[in-house]
């Protein structure tokens, strides 16, 4: 059946559709003026661009500051290490002094010079490679322990939320 008339009122009119249109047309919308109260003001479309721009600027500044600080601290780090480790070679050098009897009578300034000679060596990190690895391992273990503790705590929390007080007592051994 061709339903062009039902679709867009073209083509051969369908008598049943026409009759329905006529009957149901009595329920059609009767124009009534819309009364917008005077006190009803239209909120303006919010322009978030300035705020977004300010936020982005602040974020960029913070990022730039962070990068600058990190690069600065990196460049400062060897100097600080050198300062800290500077006395260490003195200790190392001092015992070696008696081994060389020729140097026994040498003036004290030379010892100082020896210290200065060893200064470049002091630019190496405080921790040796092994120590550093050990420290990292230890850190990892601490992190794992923390994670486990968090998991346990959340488990305890869930159990206390879901179980009745009687069950809480029963399950205490699992929590502990």
């Amino acid at each position: 059946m061709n339903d062009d008339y039902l679709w867009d009122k073209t083509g051969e009119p369908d008598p049943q559709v026409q009759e329905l249109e006529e009957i149901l047309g009595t329920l059609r919308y009767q124009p009534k003026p819309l009364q917008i109260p005077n006190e009803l003001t239209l909120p303006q479309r919010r322009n978030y661009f300035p705020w977004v721009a300010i936020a982005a600027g602040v974020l960029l500044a913070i990022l730039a500051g962070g990068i600058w600080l990190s690069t600065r601290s990196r460049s400062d780090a060897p100097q600080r290490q050198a300062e800290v480790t500077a006395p260490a070679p003195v200790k190392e050098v001092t015992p070696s002094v008696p081994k060389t009897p020729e140097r026994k009578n040498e003036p004290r300034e030379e010892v100082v010079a020896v210290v200065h000679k060893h200064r470049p060596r002091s630019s190496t990190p405080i921790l040796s490679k092994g120590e550093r690895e050990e420290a990292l391992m230890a850190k990892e273990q601490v992190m794992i322990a923390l994670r486990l503790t968090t998991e346990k705590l959340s488990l305890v929390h869930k159990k206390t939320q879901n179980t009745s007080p009687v069950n809480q007592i029963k399950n205490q051994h699992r929590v502990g």
Partner: protein
Amino acid sequence: MYATADMLLTSPAPAAPEQTHETAIEVVLVKAVLEGDRDGFTRLYDLYAPLVHGILLARVPRAEVDDLVQDIFLHAYKKLHTLRDSSLFGPWIAMIARNRAVDFHRRKHETVEINDELRGSNTQDSRATEILELIRNLPEAYRETLVLRLVEGMTGPEIAGRTGLTAASVRVNLHRGMKLLREQLGFMEGL
């Protein structure tokens, strides 16, 4: 089945220009309203009140429809700044109307259907109410489209353009809805 497939294949091209024209008007009007032109909103109301009326008529008691139409447009006026794409004013307000109809039923108003009162006014009106009741009992997908077509007198392309539905789905809904309504009307005397 074949009719449906045929309709889907021959979905009408004329819908597009009309839709574009209306969309252009909407965009201009929404912009004007947002710039403080209240008359622009009155124009939008004139354009879209039949759509909102039809959507509500398919869902809520007839006596409530007029007040709800006003409420919906006032709500739309207050929230117009939240409409991101001005060309979608039609689908937007249609959605507000549908949501408002759902809210209406959720609140469980203790309304007494005044069908008897309406029926008493004249025969034509009472028959209209009866047929509307039949349409309301049809599946939801067909209700709205049939009311917009048969009550508000909108064409299929107009319904598609204003509700944001595709022309093909409107055509299918009209065809299937009308088929079901014809079956229902077969039981009614005098039609």
